[in-house]
């Protein structure tokens, strides 16, 4: 087991564990914190997969900006374990069962893929570098890039419409 494999397992366990933490934690603040841990673990995976730029973006955008926003909102609303609404046990159980079923079914469905032995390992390759990504983005993907500005515009307008006090 080489170092990358060890790292893979550590990061995987960390990601899954903290994701479970998000779901299970009673206190919303803990959930946010767990989520941040998940993001970090995923960023670690990115680095393992030679996606350095994405790893950074993930931390900056997700863990940094988005999660802070979440935290901010939670703090603003003063949410905590006491006021946290809880579903009935049965519904929760049903939810878990359903999630588990879905997992099992999807895994059962695709575990036998022909490409399953194909590896995705830390090795050479520099596509994850900002330069290469940038080149591709502004050559081949310039159209979606520009179009996503419309998305942002609309989100911006929307946030104003919804958020602004009348």
């Amino acid at each position, binding site marked *: 087991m080489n170092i990358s494999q060890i790292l893979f397992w550590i990061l995987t366990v960390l990601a899954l564990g903290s994701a479970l933490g998000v779901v299970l934690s009673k206190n919303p603040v803990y959930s946010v914190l767990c989520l941040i841990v998940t993001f970090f673990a995923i960023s670690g995976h990115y680095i393992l997969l030679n996606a350095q730029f994405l790893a950074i973006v993930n931390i900056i955008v997700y863990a940094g900006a988005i999660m802070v926003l979440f935290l901010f909102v939670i703090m603003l609303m003063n949410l905590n374990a006491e006021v946290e609404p809880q579903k009935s046990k049965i519904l929760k159980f049903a939810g878990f069962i359903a999630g588990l*079923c879905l997992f099992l079914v999807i895994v059962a469905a695709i575990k036998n893929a022909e490409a399953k032995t194909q590896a995705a390992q830390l090795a050479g390759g520099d596509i994850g570098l900002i330069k290469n990504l940038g080149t591709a983005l502004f050559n081949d993907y310039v159209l979606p890039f520009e179009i996503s500005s419309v998305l942002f515009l609309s989100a911006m307008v929307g946030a104003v419409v919804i958020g602004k006090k009348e």
Partner: protein
Amino acid sequence: MNLIYLVPLFPLVGFLLNGLCRNYLNKSLVGIIGSGSILASFIVSLIVFFDVKAGHTGVVSYFEFINLGKFAIPFAFQVDQLSSLFLLIITGVGFLIHLYSTSYMHEEESQHFARYFAYLNLFVFSMLLLVLGANYVIMFIGWEGVGLCSYLLIGYWFKSIPYTNAANKAFIMNRIGDLGFLIAIFWIISKVGSVNYTDVFSSLNKFSTTDLVVITLLLFVGATGKSAQIPLYTWLPDAMAGPTPVSALIHAATMVTAGIYMIARSNILYSHAHVTMHIVAVIGLATAVFAATIALKQNDIKKVLAYSTVSQLGYMFLALGVGAYTGAVFHVMTHAFFKALLFLGSGSVIHAMGGEQDIRKMGGLGKYMPVTHITFLIGCLAIAGIPGFSGFFSKDEILAHTFSESPVMYCIGLFGALLTAFYMFRLYATTFKGSFRGTHDQEHHLHESPAAITIPLIILAVLAFAGGYVGIPEFIKPDAHALDNFLSPIFAESKKVLGNHPLEHNTEWMLTGISTLLIVIVVVTAWSKFAKKADVEDPQGFGKVLANKWYIDELYDAIIVKPVYGLGRFCNNVLEKLVDWIINGVGRSVQYGSRQLRLLQSGQVGSYVLFMIIGIVLFFVMQFFFKK
């Protein structure tokens, strides 16, 4: 022969004139139109008759009624001995009855008077159509037409619900018979591809024996309806609800003999179907005796005559059944005379009695109304079969033929004849002899009827007496049977088929002697018994059964009418609701499903997502684990 279309045309015109202008014509005009049209048609009939007698027979075709390419039904008239004879009877007796009616119905309101004559003319028209038609379809048209007129005339006094009930009964019973007739027509069409008499009778080889038996039986079913035979006879007594001249014309003289005409017309078919012949004979005989027994205990003057009509019709069928076609037709003719006479006489009595029909309330009328009395007596003698009167000749002919077929049937037939003599003279004696049993008021008004009534009575009485001499039997005077000679072209084929075994003259003499003797005894018995003491008590025991007509109406009611209505109620109240409930049930279940299904929409995101997940899982399972 070229004038033949005039025969039905006159009554039709009379019908239209009287029917459409009934609000504008006065009674005498109506009477003139009504009777005159029949008289005109009688005159034409006479011309036709002599024409036919001179040998001019044939088919006159006017237009195509129904055309189906290969198969066509022409609107054509058959002019031959049989139809011309019937024409005379219908128009002749018809005219007399019309004449009689002008007086009898005179108290009706003017428009109803016109309506009456319109119906009567329409009836004559239909009857002529029936008789003249050159094919079964035209006959059927007339057949149903007379049924309609019978319905209309029985229900002439429509304010009375029992009368209209009788009308309905008559029509429906007739329809049952008509159904048989209709199916017989279809059967013929399917075999021959034509309904013309000439075509049908000339292509007997196209029929199998079964075909012939079934067809003839079906035709006979039709005949039992129209001619009131067992089991469809019950309408006829009820039909007495109509005005008395109507009973005379339709329910005695003409319409009810349509069945005989039809079978006589189809004689060749019957001659080839022995089974049917036997059945016809048996039914006819049974009806003759059965109706006669009922007539014994009836107290309504018209009811007695009605049952006697049924009984006499039974004799005619007996005649047909034993192959005595001429005898049947002969009896039709004589019966037309004497039965019309009797009915008209009874009408005269009823008229005098102010509408009273119960013979127990009459008595001794002979002295008040001599013409009626005498003519009625002639009628009675004729129907009883006293030698010299017309009924004697025709009945004797029938009985003689029956004897040659089967002595047993002869005995039964003779028994029926005795019954006839008995009840007729019971009727006669109770009505005209003895002392008057009605109210004082009625007695005060008793008088002889006016001339318009008595003249037809007299004419008919003459006919009832003399009508028989056209058919003097072989054994009395050879070759004197004018009617047989006249009709022989019609029945020639059948005669060949059936083979004629005439009785020994001695046997015939003997039979005639015995029957005459017995009848005279019975007549005398009845006369003497009822002239002294009328049969006024309520009958007991078996007599009660007879008075109640063997409870046949009740029986029919119980086994047919009630179940049918019960079934109708069941269909209407149960099945109909059930079917509707099922149909509505679809709608209801949609509604119910809607109420339940909308609960899926619980409003909670969690459950929505849960359903989605279940959907995804299912789709995955389907796509990956349930592949063909």
